[in-house]
């Protein structure tokens, strides 16, 4: 199966495939090392970054705790500035709304700036079915669009591609043979996409932040495609999950100071585009219409659940870069739109807990994700919460039995000592130079992939007794 092309529920199979893909391994190591180094360096260089991250988190907590109120305020301010708010309860609603906007405005050619929300609702096929040509304009997204694939990282969607494979994909698409150096590939991209911007009549974006107080949406990009998408076409549609709403305009810089630092180590991304309504009278350029599609698609359910904290995510990708699991298996293994530690929470919640049984376990709970997260989301805690939920749905009888037996043993010191002795004798049967390389039964799950240290000849308890005598 080509895991890059389709969403799936085969975490184990996809991970195994990723682990035996040397170019992917090299690309992931390079990306995550560089981005994590930037993350650590820039948090360290920002005076009281920890306090600022706490502050950002509190703003999000507050916004979510009063989200109904802020959504209504947002609707008022957007309308006041001549924009239109649309309410999309489901992905299907959202697709329909965007298709209708395109139809009513007579738009035939859409350009899109990178938006995870539009990936989530599978917008492109719906628009194309309605006769609207859609072009992804973030360079990485453009590559994977013409390759027919899915993004594999929140901020570096084409990280799984090499220079050579990008040249191959682009040459095939453009029917000309292109050299495989980064600069000329990027410049070819510029030329091709400029033409698309010139022709486009519809610009589709996500939103990194939405401000209730002023009806403002914010786009953060490094390439500038977000700016072109909101400058050239005559209609602009922004699609935002309801969790993107923050209360005040003055809360924005708190997040802006953290987003790029957390994601790449930049003090600020190259372009921060702060849009409040459509083009005003007397202005030279910019869209004539502005639409904001507010998407629920399962978010309200999470808002009322113990997993509310996951809605604080600002999609910076830092937890992916920090995660020892993501760093080896990459984004496609996770099966859904969102990958890495935060994806391991979002995919089960949005998609289905029972169809994604492995995701909450794709973590060693080391906490590196939380340490890297600009809003300090307690990801490990929520992963454990999901594991508990799984257990409630589908109790593991054997595991329960084992733990019950273990409990009985721990309550009786004599039994504990006796079982230790047995375990030692038994395990030493399999030992070779101090290591257990192959264990039978359930133990084989461990030794198939790594060795286990053999028990010492003398137990700690024996030695302790000796030391004290």
């Amino acid at each position, binding site marked *: 199966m080509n895991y890059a092309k389709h969403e799936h529920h085969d975490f184990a199979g996809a991970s195994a495939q990723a682990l035996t893909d040397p170019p992917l391994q090299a690309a992931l190591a390079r990306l995550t090392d560089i981005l994590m180094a930037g993350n650590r360096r820039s948090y360290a260089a920002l005076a009281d970054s920890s306090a600022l991250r706490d502050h950002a988190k509190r703003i999000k907590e507050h916004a979510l*705790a009063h989200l109904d109120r802020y959504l209504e305020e947002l609707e008022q301010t957007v309308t006041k500035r001549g924009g239109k708010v649309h309410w999309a309860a489901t992905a299907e609603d959202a697709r329909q709304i965007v298709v209708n906007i395109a139809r009513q405005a007579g738009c035939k050619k859409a350009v899109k700036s990178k938006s995870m929300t539009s990936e989530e609702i599978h917008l492109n096929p719906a628009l194309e079915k309605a006769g609207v040509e859609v072009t992804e304009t973030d360079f990485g997204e453009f590559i994977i669009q013409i390759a027919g694939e899915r993004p594999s990282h929140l901020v570096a969607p084409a990280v799984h591609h090499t220079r050579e494979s990008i040249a191959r994909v682009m040459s095939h698409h453009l029917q000309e043979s292109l050299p495989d150096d980064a600069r000329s590939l990027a410049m070819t991209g510029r030329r091709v996409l400029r033409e698309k911007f010139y022709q486009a009549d519809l610009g589709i974006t996500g939103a990194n932040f939405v401000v209730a107080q002023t009806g403002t949406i914010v786009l953060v990009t490094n*390439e*500038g495609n977000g*700016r072109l998408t909101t*400058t050239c076409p005559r209609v602009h549609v922004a699609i935002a999950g309801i969790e993107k709403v923050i209360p005040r305009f*003055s809360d924005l810089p708190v997040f802006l100071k953290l987003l790029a630092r957390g994601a790449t180590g930049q003090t600020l991304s190259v372009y921060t585009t702060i849009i409040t309504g459509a083009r005003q009278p007397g202005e030279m350029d910019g869209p004539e219409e502005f639409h904001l599609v507010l998407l629920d698609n399962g978010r309200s359910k*999470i808002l*009322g659940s113990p997993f509310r904290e996951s809605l604080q995510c600002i999609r910076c990708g830092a937890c992916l870069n920090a995660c020892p699991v993501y760093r080896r298996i990459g984004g496609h293994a996770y099966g859904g739109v969102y990958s890495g530690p935060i994806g391991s929470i979002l995919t089960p919640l949005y998609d289905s807990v029972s169809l994604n049984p492995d995701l909450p376990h794709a973590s060693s709970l080391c906490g590196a994700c939380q340490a890297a997260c600009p809003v300090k989301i307690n990801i490990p805690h929520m992963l454990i919460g999901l594991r508990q939920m799984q257990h409630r749905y589908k109790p593991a009888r054997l595991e329960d039995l084992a733990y019950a037996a273990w409990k009985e043993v721990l309550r009786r010191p004599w039994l504990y000592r006796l079982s230790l002795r047995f375990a030692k004798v038994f395990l030493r049967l399999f030992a070779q130079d101090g290591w257990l390389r192959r264990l039978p039964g359930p133990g084989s799950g461990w030794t198939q992939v790594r060795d286990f240290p053999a028990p010492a000849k003398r137990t700690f308890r024996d030695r302790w007794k000796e030391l004290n005598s």
Partner: protein
Amino acid sequence: MTTREAFLQRVRQAVVEGNRLTAAPPMPERGRTGYQGAGADPVPRFCQELRNAGGVAHEAKSSEHARAIVRELVSTKSARKLLLSRGGIVERLELPRLLRDMGSEVLIADALPASTKDAFFQADLGISNVAYLVAETGTVVVATSAITPPSPLGKGVEGEGRRVGADPRSISLLPPVHIAVAQRNQILPDLFDLFDLFSPIGAKPQFPPSCLTLITGPSKTGDIELKLVTGVHGPGEVHVVICD
């Protein structure tokens, strides 16, 4: 029930349910948390940060010097079609005349006829004013309409309540080279200072311009094996000329 009401009803209910699990915290005050500032003189900090982001800072000692810098840039880029903002420092430096005299085709991006789009797409170089500069991050701020800073908060800007900046989106976006001309007193020390300019007056929100753009260096992509390539969509070169 309309779609909108049903939508909001679901959110309302989820807010109540979730708030039962975790108490709703009051809106925190930021105070000085995270304020970086820029020391006694923000100019060197701005120039350093702009360089870090890949841009080029030019400090002009006089108007004549500033004009010389711009002329030099335009001629080394052999730019023929220039797109200029109206008014502001661009006009105070008399750049349109200077550049026309050099033989360039100068378009003032204001009240251009219907063929504007082609003119915008074909320009080789754009020269804009700025609303502000931010020293902390080396950022150029351009706005689509004039910003009137509320007088008590208008720090860093000479003349209280003076209107600053009005530039079309395209000038700093479509041409491959962008030159921004600014004055020293347009530098704000910290990103927070910029956003605080829009603090509501009483209960009334102050709307920012339809598009406020923060530009920090040239357009960049790392999508090809993380090799940094500049100019993939926006300008590949950003110059900031700071006049006294």
